[in-house]
């Protein structure tokens, strides 16, 4: 029996009750279809000889099908191994790797930015590959090997390499009557001044970590060093470092050759290259990863790429990614087999064709791939001498924390450049010695 209910029970509600019933029904259908699953990045093989899971940033695995997944699938089919590739947002990858591996789960292999290898190694999350890598060490650029080495042990195999060179707008140079890209600090400064005016600017800078990352070339070009050889003391506030820092900051503070929007470059290289792409800026320091978005975003742009200018010496900063085996790898031999296969000469085509990136192998110098594009040739040429940042566990906290804040406080005119740098060096030293 149903007693009459006091209170309104509007028709809509009854309709909704049945709509909910329908929703639940629909939901279970949805559940069934969803459980059927959709393929994630490549897998192959029967899994007879084991399984491998690889985590990388969305740079390599942008969802859907990626070159890396395809390659991994090939490996799987050949060796009867089930290989799964997962992509994560770049700013998230390291946290994800750290929490998952600490929790006892996680992937067998990771592909991470070279500057993050030391941090993962210090957290005891990576397998020591010294014995396996040493025999093939000479096949890779020394800077990339140095970046993958922490406290004397090698924890990763270099995958791709990148560095920073000078992009310049040919049309704007022509208009200003400058015949060749600058090769020294002084030439760069006077060219930048020449090119500034009428809403156009000569040179591009970044804020936050983009600012600290692009300071290192200036420091090295002036003969300075980031830390002491044993990585226990920050030395970038040496007289050479101070001079470089002052020159670098003055491009904006004194010379005004930088578009003020650079203060907003805090999240991506896209923001950094946007003024150059829209021909608001005539020169920018940028990695080889800038070529693709420029081509895509403004195909009509006429630009050239030149080596970084020098002062005492020429120098540029090294980046790129490396492949590491984690402590979660149940089958270390299989994980190594995949790592050495992926970083072998035969598989260079994955990086070249799939991602337009430069393999970190020395045999790339003088290859057809290197010569195909004059812009790329400059980066390949610099790859052999590019300097890696100190492989220390707290590097992220220094480059994207202490130094990023120091740079921001300078460009937001909160602190004098010299004071900010000295304070940052003190803080960085504390980070270096903190265990």
């Amino acid at each position, binding site marked *: 029996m149903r007693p009459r209910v006091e209170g309104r029970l509007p028709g809509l509600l009854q309709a909704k009750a049945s709509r909910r019933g329908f929703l639940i029904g629909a939901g279970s259908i949805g559940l069934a279809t969803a459980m059927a699953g959709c393929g994630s990045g490549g897998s192959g093989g029967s899994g007879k000889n084991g399984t491998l899971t690889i985590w990388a940033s969305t740079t390599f695995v942008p969802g859907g099908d990626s070159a890396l997944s395809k390659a991994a699938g090939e490996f799987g089919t050949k060796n009867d191994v089930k290989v799964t590739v997962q992509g994560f947002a770049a700013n998230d990858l390291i*946290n994800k790797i*750290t*929490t998952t*591996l*600490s*929790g006892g789960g996680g992937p067998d292999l990771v592909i991470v930015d070279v500057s993050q290898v030391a941090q993962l190694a210090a*957290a*005891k*999350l990576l397998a020591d590959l010294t014995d396996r890598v040493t025999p093939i060490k000479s096949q890779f650029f020394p800077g990339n090997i140095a970046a993958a080495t922490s406290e004397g042990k090698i924890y990763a195999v270099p995958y791709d390499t990148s560095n920073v060179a000078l992009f310049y707008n040919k049309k704007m140079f022509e208009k200003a009557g400058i015949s060749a890209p600058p090769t020294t600090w002084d030439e760069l400064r006077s060219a930048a001044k020449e090119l500034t005016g009428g809403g156009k600017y000569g040179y591009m800078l970044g*804020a*936050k970590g983009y600012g600290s990352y692009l300071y290192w070339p200036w420091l090295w070009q002036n003969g300075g060093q980031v830390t002491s050889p044993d990585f226990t003391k920050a030395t970038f506030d040496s007289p050479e470092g101070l001079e470089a820092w002052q020159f670098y900051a003055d491009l904006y503070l004194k010379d005004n050759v930088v578009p*003020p*929007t650079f*203060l*907003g*470059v*805090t*999240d991506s290289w896209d*923001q950094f290259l*946007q*003024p150059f792409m829209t021909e608001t800026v005539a020169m920018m320091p940028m990695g080889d990863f800038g070529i693709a978005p420029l081509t895509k975003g403004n195909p009509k742009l006429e630009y050239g790429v030149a080596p970084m200018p020098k002062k005492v010496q020429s120098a540029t900063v090294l980046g790129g990614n490396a492949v590491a085996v984690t402590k979660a790898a149940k089958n270390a031999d299989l994980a190594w087999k995949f790592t050495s296969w992926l970083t072998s000469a035969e598989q260079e085509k994955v990086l070249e064709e799939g991602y337009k990136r430069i393999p970190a192998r020395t045999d790339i110098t003088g290859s057809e791939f290197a010569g195909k594009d004059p812009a790329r040739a400059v980066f390949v040429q610099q790859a052999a001498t590019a300097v890696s940042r100190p492989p220390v566990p707290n590097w*992220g*906290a220094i480059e994207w*924390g202490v130094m990023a*804040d120091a740079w*921001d*406080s300078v460009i*937001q005119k*909160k602190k004098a450049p010299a004071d900010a740098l000295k304070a940052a060096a003190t803080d960085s030293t504390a980070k270096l010695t903190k265990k």
Partner: protein
Amino acid sequence: MRQRLTALSPFLYLLPALVALAGVLGYPVLDAVWTSLKHSVPTDPSADRFTGLANYRAIFGNGAFWTALGHTGLWALANLVLQLTIGFGLALLMHQKLAGRALFRSVVIIPWVVPSVVVAVIWRYLLDPTSGPLNQLLMSTGLTQEPVLWLANQATAMPVVILLSVWKWTPFVAVILLAGLQAIPEELHEAAMIDGAGLWGRLLHVVVPGIRTSLTLASLLTIGYSVNNFNGIWLFTQGGPIGATETLTTFAYRKAFTEFDFGSAAAVAVVLFAGLFVVSTAYFFSVEGRKGRKL
């Protein structure tokens, strides 16, 4: 009817809820309190050791903690004041018998139902200093000569994230206050009109007392949500520039997931929770004070 019940039956009804709450909320909370009393680095479980109040001493001795606490206070207060005042105005609008009221009510709440990640995408696009339409608009109308660096400038970052949070949450507050407005009997308004009260008089003597409970609830929820709001800051500025928008939640997250110092992170969260606990308990007793009185 109550005499028909055994003492056990309420707990049978409550059992599924109790199991879920104890397991998925209760245990983690206790685990966090316990973690805050330890040196805990997830990447090195063997180094776990009980350190008592050392983490608390460390954070109280850390200037950055106090700065973040100050920012949290400012953030919560600004959110509270702005959301309640604007929300009250919005609620009054939603309450009027005007043409298109249903549609107005449905669309004006969009910011509240838009997921935080989407809010971040939309506004980061709008505010982008290099290609964002807002700066293009301002510059083309000549209001500004140079692009405004909304989120990158130390001076403007905090006000901007506060306004973005107000944008997202004000409709929610308005809806709570609307519930209060709808519950005010029409007779009260009529009586006040007969007494010759004008618009302001009615607002002051009928509306405000009438929605007192909703106001209290809205204040409590706003304080709770703002203080714990992590996405609303992290997805825009990550606590930057130069720590200008660092609140206790971003501070705790950074401690946990960039420094992997779970002990200190837990201590920060416990301090945060303790403060909120006091506020919400006080609220509970002020509203639930008299037996049988509904929230």
